[in-house]
């Protein structure tokens, strides 16, 4: 089968020609790579470009330029430039540090060593010196330095195995096979004498396609396909060595071609913030215009300006406007962006540091690959999850079986123990967790009536498969392309039926110590159509026998009437399926020699068929697979990752809707949905499996009608749809109906999806529902949806890196999602939004004061504060509180957030951060600034506040106001802070002290240091002035008393769940005690509201709804590989010893 291309090399445009052993004629790019963003020279221009493409930074640059115009700036030339530079330097340092790491990593890769053939000898050279056309030798376990065409290998038939998990995330090994024409070239001499050329396509990013032609001298051209190509980034496995000729290097390798930049994602909060900056900008314009009008009015009042002002020139309206824009420009917080950048960076570090998300199994910590989306984690409404490797470990365990109508392995106490053990080290199989039912062996040994069946059953498990055993000392490990088969063989081994050796035509097993050899006559391969696989063997007794295992549906229809235990087994199958186990029925039939011979003739004919060979083979298989005698059924557990059901329950409580999108089969998906409690037994399942647009439309409409009024509400329904149907369902006409239907169901399972469809469905939900979506997956097929969703989470630590590399957050286990969302997400949302609102608040407070002052200074644009004090406001005096808010704020403890997932809704709904909230905050700030200006202004109305009777000046008032602003703003941060730790105290009290200290020092610099002459003596005078201190206590209190009163009244009258939880925490009620009556009441009430929708009482009038018990059949097997399963198993002789083999991908 495979998909080796026919000789068509000639009609494909071949853009690249590689000459063998002629290095000078191959001039392509180097193999060294660089993933760094900047180089030494490009740093400055590129960095500046990136920074000034941010609107806010561009705005401040514009202000800086305006300030250079003489006469315009009320605050001097450099007062915006300096803070802007400080901010640019800070984020510049961050960029340099990050880029330095990338440079180092590149260097490490580029200097790795590999062996190439140069001057007729093997030489060790670093990766970066590998050129196109080089012949490279790689040994087992090595990563390949470039894309190359396989020439030969150490293995039989010139095959080799590669782990492609870095590229596509698939954990099974891929087989590559060299062309038979080159398979014999193994020595230096042979290789050096190789001459000819390879023509192939231009570099591209398709992993699974390659078109090339090999022109060897004096030989006809041979086509090269993907089966001959070894890609950079893959790792050689189970193969002693390979030789390959390099075709693509460096950035032209498929690996690097795939390393496109992930799309830049912006969080919802960021978008709202940009919106708010715009609002503030409008406010700035309005204020400037009002001030300009005020200036005109003021000038009009005097007809001529008063004589003492001197100059009689009138400024134009435009000039005044610029003056006021500069005066008020800091309404837009200059430090906001850099503050957020640092805050989010630290939040990301907290995620990386979290021990609760540290998977000790392979020492993997959670990793925030971007810090842009930290707060988005707190707003997730739709969760799209991959199945394999995300919900499951992708490890199959033989759990239960039913033999001759008796169920074994149903030991609840055992499985409980197992679960406990599991929580410690998930995904690592402990013996206690595997099939362990002594009854089976007892029955076997004590000559139970079913003894023969048990023996036959276990023999079947040992014989009927395509697993290859590997013997290392006394240990036997199994290598299988189907994890189900590996699980069954391992299960049989535990029960004393050990599959020991495979030879091309036979298998040897040890049945309870007795060595038996079965001659394998035919392998009737598995395909998803057939849903079964059979094997025809000659037993040691010489009997011809066909063993078959497959789906209950296909086996049952082929049972002979004589078959026993049919009813009992069916009941057991249903039980297995309800628990979410993957079931297979096993059966056998004894064949007579004549029967077999007749069939063999048919088989040979079919296998030679030119047309529809697969179809005729399957027909042929079918003809002998009949009149089965049922032996029983197996139940395999597709092991869920630790705490998956609990996590899902918790996320559901948090009002997150979970959709499972999988490329896997429908049966498997349903099994998993049952075992992770997404589906429950009595939940009606709407299954959409159609083939045409019309049918899809019709069935969707029908279901919508059946739902009637319940449409659009959350119902206790499951929707199951496959890829083919989904293609139609996402058609423009049907899309809306389909989404309505899907959103009315509690659970949605989409099966058999292509990676593109996964991305598409995420995109549709994202656009139609306008909710925040999160996609989680581990494989290459999840990359699309991970990139499409608002937040992409990759499961890391397994071998696949592609999902991780494209994700925004990487975690080792699905269950860590709970902490990531409910704790980090919620906290980060609170932190970021509070930080942003606070930054807006503090700037509005300070700069609206200039407007109040403008009213009394004739709208001249005079500033009331010293110019550098203004500039340092955001950089020093009020820079710390936003950080503590952004880094340390906690609405309540982690335990509470995890215990009450309902708390997640506060951040999910986004009620605490929107334009309305911003306006409230702004109005609050305006009120505060009003108080902050007019109270001191009235206090100093008569200029005589000093004990020595001295009079004061405008800056004296300015310093009063500034001090009160700093105090008020810092205390306001304290008021917003829900959790004060030592840093909060430091930031709040520290900021006030820093200002007072600075004030004292700064007032005595002139003329020693030529700055701030107008500040001279201000500190000495103000700090001893009784009014200053009397105001120091009253002004902030006047501002904040309203906030405190409002807050406490609201908290008292309208107590939120959050408040309740916080009160519980601080009143010392042990959060860990579950049986507190009050809490359980809270929990109950909320539980009822959030999780359990009404039981669905819809009467469905269509046949797409499945109310019956689920079927558990599921089986995974690679189909359409380069070599068929039969060929593969027949190529092994495991009785011969093979040195230097390491099997990292065996199912041990």
């Amino acid at each position, binding site marked *: 089968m495979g998909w080796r291309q026919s000789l068509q090399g000639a009609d494909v445009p071949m853009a690249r020609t590689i000459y063998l052993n002629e290095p000078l004629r191959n001039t392509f790019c180097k193999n060294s790579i660089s993933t760094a963003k900047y180089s030494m020279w490009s740093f400055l221009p590129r960095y500046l470009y990136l920074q000034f493409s941010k609107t806010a930074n561009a705005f401040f640059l514009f202000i800086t330029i305006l300030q250079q115009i003489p006469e315009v700036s009320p605050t001097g030339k450099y007062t915006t430039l300096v803070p802007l530079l400080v901010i640019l330097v800070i984020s510049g340092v961050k960029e340099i540090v990050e880029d330095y790491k990338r440079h180092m990593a590149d260097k490490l890769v580029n200097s790795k060593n590999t062996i190439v053939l140069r001057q007729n000898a093997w030489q060790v050279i670093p990766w970066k010196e590998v050129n196109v056309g080089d012949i490279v030798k790689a040994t087992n376990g090595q990563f390949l330095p470039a894309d190359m065409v396989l020439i030969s290998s150490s293995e039989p038939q010139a095959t080799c195995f590669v782990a492609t998990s870095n590229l596509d995330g698939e954990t099974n090994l891929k087989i590559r096979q060299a062309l038979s024409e080159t398979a014999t070239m193994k020595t230096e001499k042979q290789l050096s004498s190789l001459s000819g050329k390879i023509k192939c396509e231009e570099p591209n990013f398709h992993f699974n396609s390659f078109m090339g032609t090999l022109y060897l001298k004096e030989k006809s051209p041979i086509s090269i396909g993907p089966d001959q190509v070894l890609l950079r980034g893959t790792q050689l496995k189970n193969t002693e060595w390979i030789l390959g000729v390099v075709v693509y290097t460096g950035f032209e390798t498929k690996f690097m071609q795939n390393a496109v930049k992930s799309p830049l994602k912006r969080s919802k909060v960021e978008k709202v913030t940009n919106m708010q900056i715009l609002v503030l900008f409008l406010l700035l314009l309005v204020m400037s215009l009002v001030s300009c009008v005020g200036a005109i009015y003021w000038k009009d009042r005097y007809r001529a300006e008063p004589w003492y002002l001197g100059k009689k020139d009138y400024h134009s309206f435009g000039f005044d406007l610029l003056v006021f824009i500069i005066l008020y420009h800091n309404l837009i917080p200059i430090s906001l962006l850099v503050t957020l950048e640092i805050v989010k960076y630290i939040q990301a570090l907290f995620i990386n540091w979290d021990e609760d998300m540290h998977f000790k199994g392979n020492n993997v910590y959670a990793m925030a690959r971007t810090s842009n989306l930290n707060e988005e984690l707190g707003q997730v409404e739709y969760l799209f999850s991959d199945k394999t490797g995300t919900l499951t470990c992708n490890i199959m365990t033989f759990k239960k079986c039913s033999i001759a109508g008796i169920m074994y392995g149903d030991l609840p106490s055992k499985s409980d123990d197992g679960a406990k053990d599991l929580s410690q080290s998930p995904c690592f199989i402990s013996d206690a967790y595997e099939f362990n039912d002594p009854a089976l062996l007892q029955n076997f040994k004590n000559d139970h009536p079913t003894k023969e069946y048990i023996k036959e059953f276990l023999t079947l498990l040992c014989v009927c498969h395509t697993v290859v055993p590997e013997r290392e000392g006394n240990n036997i490990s199994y290598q299988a392309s189907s994890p189900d088969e590996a699980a069954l063989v391992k299960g049989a081994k535990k029960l004393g039926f050990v599959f020991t050796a495979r030879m091309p035509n036979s298998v040897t097993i040890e049945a309870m110590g007795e060595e038996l050899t079965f001659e394998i006559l035919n392998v009737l391969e598995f395909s998803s159509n057939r849903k079964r696989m059979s094997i025809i063997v000659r037993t040691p007794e010489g009997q011809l026998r066909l063993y078959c295992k497959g789906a209950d549906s296909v086996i049952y229809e082929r049972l002979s009437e004589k078959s026993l235990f049919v009813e009992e087994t069916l009941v057991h199958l249903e039980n297995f399926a309800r628990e979410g186990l993957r079931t297979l029925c096993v059966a056998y039939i004894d064949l007579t020699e004549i029967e077999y011979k007749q069939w063999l003739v048919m088989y040979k004919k079919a296998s030679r068929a030119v047309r529809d060979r697969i179809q005729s083979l399957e027909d042929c298989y079918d003809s002998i697979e009949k009149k089965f005698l049922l032996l029983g059924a197996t139940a395999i557990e597709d092991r869920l990752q630790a705490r998956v059901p609990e996590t899902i329950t918790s996320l559901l409580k948090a009002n997150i809707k979970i959709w499972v999108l999988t490329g896997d089969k429908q049966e498997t998906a349903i099994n998993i949905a049952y075992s992770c409690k997404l589906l429950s037994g009595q939940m009606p399942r709407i299954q959409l499996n159609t083939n045409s647009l019309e049918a899809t439309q019709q069935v969707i409409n029908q279901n919508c009608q059946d739902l009637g009024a319940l449409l659009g509400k959350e119902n206790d329904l499951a929707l199951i749809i496959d890829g083919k149907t989904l293609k139609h369902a996402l058609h423009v006409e049907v899309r809306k109906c389909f989404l309505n239907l899907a959103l009315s169901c509690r659970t949605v399972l989409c099966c058999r999806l292509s990676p593109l469809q996964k991305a598409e469905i995420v995109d549709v939900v994202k656009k139609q529902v306008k909710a925040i979506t999160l996609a989680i997956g581990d494989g290459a097929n999840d990359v699309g949806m991970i990139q499409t969703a608002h937040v992409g989470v990759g499961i890391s630590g397994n071998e696949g890196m592609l999902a991780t590399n494209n994700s925004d957050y990487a975690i080792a286990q699905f269950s860590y999602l709970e902490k990531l969302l409910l704790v980090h997400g919620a906290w980060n949302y609170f932190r970021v939004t509070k930080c942003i609102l606070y930054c807006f608040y503090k700037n509005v407070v300070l700069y609206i004061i200039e407007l109040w002052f403008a009213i009394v200074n004739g709208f001249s644009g005079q500033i009331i504060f010293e110019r550098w004090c203004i500039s340092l406001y955001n950089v020093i005096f009020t820079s710390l509180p936003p950080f503590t808010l952004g880094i340390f704020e906690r609405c309540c403890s982690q335990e509470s957030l995890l215990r009450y997932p309902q708390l997640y809704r506060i951040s999910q709904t986004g009620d605490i951060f929107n334009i309305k909230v911003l306006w409230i905050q702004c109005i609050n700030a305006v009120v505060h600034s009003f108080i902050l200006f007019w109270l001191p202004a009235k206090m100093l109305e008569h200029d005589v506040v000093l004990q020595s009777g001295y009079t004061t000046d405008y800056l004296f008032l300015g310093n009063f106001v500034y001090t009160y602003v700093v105090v008020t703003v810092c205390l306001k941060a304290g008021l917003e802070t829900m959790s004060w730790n030592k840093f909060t105290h430091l930031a709040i009290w520290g900021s006030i002290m820093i200002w007072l200290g600075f004030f004292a020092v700064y007032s*005595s610099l002139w003329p020693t240091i030529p700055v701030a002459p107008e500040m001279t003596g201000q500190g000495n005078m103000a700090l001893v002035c009784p009014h200053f201190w009397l105001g120091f206590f009253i002004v902030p209190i006047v501002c904040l008393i309203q906030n405190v009163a409002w*807050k406490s009244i609201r908290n008292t009258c309208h107590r939120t769940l959050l408040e309740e939880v916080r009160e519980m925490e601080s009143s010392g009620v042990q959060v860990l005690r579950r049986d507190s009556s009050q809490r359980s009441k809270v929990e109950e009430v909320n539980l009822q509201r959030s999780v359990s929708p009404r039981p669905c009482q819809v009467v469905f009038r269509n046949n797409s709804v499945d109310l019956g018990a689920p079927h558990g059949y599921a089986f995974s097997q690679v189909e359409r590989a380069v070599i068929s399963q039969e060929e593969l198993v027949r190529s092994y002789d495991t009785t011969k010893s093979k040195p230097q083999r390491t099997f990292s991908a065996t199912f041990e």
Partner: protein
Amino acid sequence: MAMNYNAKDEVDGGPPCPPGGTAKTRRPDNTAFKQQRLPAWQPILTAGTVLPTFFIIGLIFIPIGIGIFVTSNNIREIEIDYTGTDPSSPCYKCLSPNVTPCICTINFTLDQSFEGNVFMYYGLSNFYQNHRRYVKSRDDGQLNGDPSALLNPSKECEPYRRNEDKPIAPCGAIANSMFNDTLELFQVGNASDLMPITLKKKGIAWWTDKNVKFRNPPGTDPLEERFKGTTKPVNWVKPVYMLDSDEDNNGFINEDFIVWMRTAALPTFRKLYRLIERKNDLHPTLPAGRYYLNITYNYPVHSFDGRKRMILSTISWMGGKNPFLGIAYITIGSISFLLGVVLLVINHKYRNSSNTADITI
């Protein structure tokens, strides 16, 4: 952000090590900081928890307010407007610019005697000393005695930077518009005889201004020499080195000048003009009775609807008379107390009902 390629993936044995770094460098210490378990105080803001604060604020602020208010009320202050806009005013004649010099006399009566040091201020209204072009029109370098700035004043002083090709000292609009009325005070004795009251010129400016910020050009020569090459401000009658006969109160360190140079915050402002020191403990500084205020009226304010006042005031520990702060304290204290009561009611109401209240999300 980052490219989706991680070079370390390719390092041998890469997959088992966590992405983005080796296991060695990424092992965090399990500190409370890193695990976000720092001990923290969670303030609970409910009516019950904050109401004591409100009462305390009320209880503290009201007495303080009363204290401040009483202190302010005990300060003696008298304000005399001598602008002369009213035709009945003795200074009405001075509004016309033709009368030079114009001297007018206003008599007033002190009902109560002023004790302790008495401070004499002049006050101007509707005078925008805080106007941007006014505020910046000075050269602090020049005022600090910097010789180069003396002869080459800052551009900010325009158009009062140079006059007739000579640099103006002191330059700028502030100096140019210096207040130049002369005020004299006479006590009307028992026999209608006028007893002049000693007005002290020195000690009216901030110490730092007098000694740090303002300095005459360096040198030991007479002041006139040191100011050589400069010219007087356009509006001034005398050059800066002739402001006073006292060497220590002349030139840039003339205290009247220094006081004027501190530009006021509001368009209505006062400037300290003279000190009347108390004589001894037995006699009040200014006993109750009749007084004459003698004004040499130079300063034009009529053109911009300004007003001129003379203020006599005593000083307490908290400065001059201003009841505002006291009232503010009393008001805030009362409001706080009232809010406390409101909260008490709310707390009472909701504490009883909270047990049965439905928990809302």
